[in-house]
């Protein structure tokens, strides 16, 4: 029941299936997408979206099925082959080489050459042009990607895709770390491409992005293509229902109305080099406090400083009235803190290890009797964690890398909940997570807060801050420029303070 749009489809898939061991990632998918269209692909975590586009872009090969591009049957043995055919993908997992410069990355596969050798100058010029075209001219192409913040890296990633002159451009949660301003620029770029007749597949868990951008939507569930329809043909509630197979009533749990609790975490004059310039704030027991602002204003550093990762932190921090100066995450953990880190792949998980091993990694001591780990206790704890967060797993002994992004994130959260933390720091915990799971996580956070935990929550998603937080502190250039509370937490207020422009609201687009 494919509803092709008026134009002939550029990409068609017929009966595509892919298995990973026992898991059916894709099950007889038939799907098409046309030129000059922005086609959103929706589905909960693990629905098979990434697998689908990995097949289209040559990263993995399907077990069965036929793929046609422009009417001709194609099979891509590797991404290079797909690129040559004009199929270019911005992956959910970044595909940048951190030690190479921005210019090297952007033109990695096909740099300008003279006499067979790479022409550094021409390459830099070309990179500057491409960056400028997505409004990212502030990035110096000679810098190493390693030295860029995550949001800039995603922009570089997009520039890199553009450099390949795509006919079919795929973005797999490519905007998950971008701030609103960047997202606007990307939208503009995508609309230009659309006008030029490029086919665009767009995967995102942020409904408002899809709303703003897509013309066609396809929903996947459990490895199956459920339905494709034009934007506006289905109500948002209906779409969510298609995605997760049930109805979602309220995205955010209600916030309790009550007076401000006694602070559990008190921060005075927190400073760290140039990045943190004397912040003060507090988080009370039972409170969820959001950190907002443009990416890279020091929010991440606040969390790391509190968690004992940074050296040379100034200011005073107290937790429950006692001074808190952890020299390491281990000490922070002993003080009842937990941190859900920014990048789950490198900082949150030990990917090749089993789900169980990852879940217990922060609780080895309480699970041990003397020196020896108590297996029964360990097993019980793992089972409990899987149940509590409804992590979709086959076997707890499987490598955690086999889970979908959302489920991986749940493993990270579950790992820390197992330690029974009193103060939870979260760095963009819902990045790349589907609506259903997001809702579960919000629910969970609220429950934890109600259970007495204090929660400090950094997010790049304004909706989330508004829907979830009791208070929001907006950061700019290492300072807290504004603290919003209750009904004052609005998108307008957040954006205004994020750009540190008083009450002027910027015009997007």
């Amino acid at each position, binding site marked *: 029941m494919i509803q092709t749009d008026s134009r002939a489809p550029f990409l068609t898939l017929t009966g595509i299936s892919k298995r990973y061991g026992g898991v059916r990632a894709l099950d007889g998918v038939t799907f098409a997408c046309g030129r000059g269209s922005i086609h959103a692909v929706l589905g909960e975590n693990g629905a098979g979206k990434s697998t689908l586009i990995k097949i289209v872009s040559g*990263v993995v090969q399907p077990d069965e099925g036929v793929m046609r591009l422009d009417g001709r049957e194609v099979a891509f043995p*590797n*991404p*290079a082959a*797909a*690129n040559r055919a004009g199929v270019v*993908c911005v*992956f959910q*997992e*970044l*595909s*940048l*080489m*951190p*030690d*190479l410069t921005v210019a*090297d*990355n952007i033109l*990695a*596969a096909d*740099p300008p*050459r003279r006499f*067979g*050798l*790479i022409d*550094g100058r021409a390459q830099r010029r070309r990179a500057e*042009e491409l*960056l*400028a*075209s*997505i*409004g990212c*001219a*502030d990035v*110096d192409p*000679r*810098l*190493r990607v390693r030295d860029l913040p995550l949001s800039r890296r995603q922009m570089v990633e997009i520039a*890199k895709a553009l450099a390949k002159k795509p006919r079919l451009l795929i973005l797999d949660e490519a905007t998950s770390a971008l701030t609103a301003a960047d997202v606007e*620029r990307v939208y*503009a770029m995508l609309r230009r491409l659309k006008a030029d007749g490029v086919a665009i597949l767009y995967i995102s868990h942020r409904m408002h992005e899809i709303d703003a951008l897509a013309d066609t939507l396809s929903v996947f569930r459990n490895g199956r293509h459920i339905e494709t329809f034009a934007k506006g043909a289905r109500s948002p509630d209906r779409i969510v229902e298609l995605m997760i197979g049930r109805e979602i009533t309220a995205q955010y749990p209600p916030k309790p109305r009550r007076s401000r609790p006694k602070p559990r975490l008190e921060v005075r004059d927190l400073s*760290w*080099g140039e990045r943190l310039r004397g912040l003060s704030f507090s988080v009370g027991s039972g409170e969820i406090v959001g950190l907002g602002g443009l990416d890279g204003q020091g929010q991440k*550093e606040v969390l*790391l400083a509190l968690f004992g*990762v*940074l*050296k*040379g932190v100034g200011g005073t921090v107290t937790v429950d009235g006692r001074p808190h100066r952890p020299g*390491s995450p281990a000490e922070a953990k002993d003080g009842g803190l937990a941190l859900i880190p920014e990048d789950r792949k490198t*900082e949150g998980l030990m990917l090749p290890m089993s789900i169980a091993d990852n879940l217990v990694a922060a609780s080895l001591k309480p699970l041990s009797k003397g020196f020896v780990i108590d297996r029964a206790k360990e097993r019980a704890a793992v089972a409990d964690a899987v149940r509590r967060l409804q992590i979709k797993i086959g076997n707890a002994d499987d490598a955690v890398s086999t889970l979908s992004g959302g489920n991986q994130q749940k493993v990270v959260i579950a790992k820390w909940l197992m330690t029974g933390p009193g103060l939870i720091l979260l760095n963009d915990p819902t990045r790349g997570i589907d609506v259903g799971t997001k809702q579960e996580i919000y629910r969970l956070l609220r429950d934890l807060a109600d259970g007495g935990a204090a929660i400090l929550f950094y997010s790049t998603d304004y909706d989330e801050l508004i829907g979830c937080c009791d208070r929001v502190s907006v950061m700019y250039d290492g300072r807290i420029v504004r603290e919003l509370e209750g009904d004052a937490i609005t998108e307008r207020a957040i954006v205004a303070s994020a750009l540190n422009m008083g009450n002027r609201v910027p015009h997007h*687009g």
Partner: protein
Amino acid sequence: MADAALSTAPRAARGGTLALRLRQNAGLLGAIGLFVLFYGVYNLYHPRGFSQQVLIQNANEVFTIALVAMAQTVPVILGGLDLSVGAVMTLVNCLASHLVAGGPGEIGLGILACLAAGTAFGFLNGCVVVYGRIQPIIATLATGAIAIGLALFLRPKPGGKLDADLSWAMTNSLGDFAETYGLFGDGSGGGQAPWFQPIAGIPVPLVLLVLVAVGVWMPFRRTLTGRTVYAVGSAEGAAFMSGLPIARAKLAAFTMAGFFAGVGGLFLAIQTSTGNADIPQAGAYTLNSIAAVVIGGTSLLGGTGGAVASVIGALVLRAISFNFRIFDIPPLMQPLVEGLVLLAAVSLGALRALRTRNRLELFR
């Protein structure tokens, strides 16, 4: 739209290229500093310091280890280690002791065959790593043993006789080279051409070293394959996703390693005019090559650095021991002093770790 304004905005915030380059190559600068220190002191206290003889002698002594260090660098940038470089050097050394003799034609063919052999062995290493999918460090531990075994077959005991003229010409100054082969002469001998005089005093090995670096390494670095070597060392998955030719880069990296090691072995054969399948010596070259790479500021994790930096690293290593010939250190204390200086030199990189204020940056 704001974009247009942004893209044409002056890039005022950007530092100069030089400052950026320096910042991105701090390790190399440290190595150069160390070299200037050790080599400067040596020359200052040497009775004939800063003379041509001393330079020639030093150049001869340095050449092979410098090339083996270059050889090591390429796989290291790729994110692997080549534990066979010393063995390949030794293998080519033994092969050369059979092939590089006779008439000029035979010698030329012999030299080509030696270089081809080193390159081919490197290529085989690459095949084992790429198609066998074995970790480089352990694959080359094994192929290194095989190379030594082959070297021992070729030279069960040290010996052979290389062309004596070649040996003399290659291990002296350009002037001696010209004289030996009657080049650039005015008829009565060689090397008297006026244009030639300013460069006549330069040691041949130094010229060769520069030729290899500029003629082979620098261009390679600027090919797509060369860049892919860096990309793979930086993030193999990302390189694959980017559509870079990974297998080709890996093959090329090990092939380059084999080639450089081969040049080193060939020179050692020419220098000593014999071949010697000395196992401890092969091991020492391999380990020293790793030390040289690290001292040169190349990260063993891959993705950064360069072969020229490793040459500097090798120079530092050698310059340390030069000083033992000048200063009176009790002979049985020398190994200890050498060990301590080596430990200190490789620990220089630790300054970065101690300065890092975000501990997460330490993990990579």
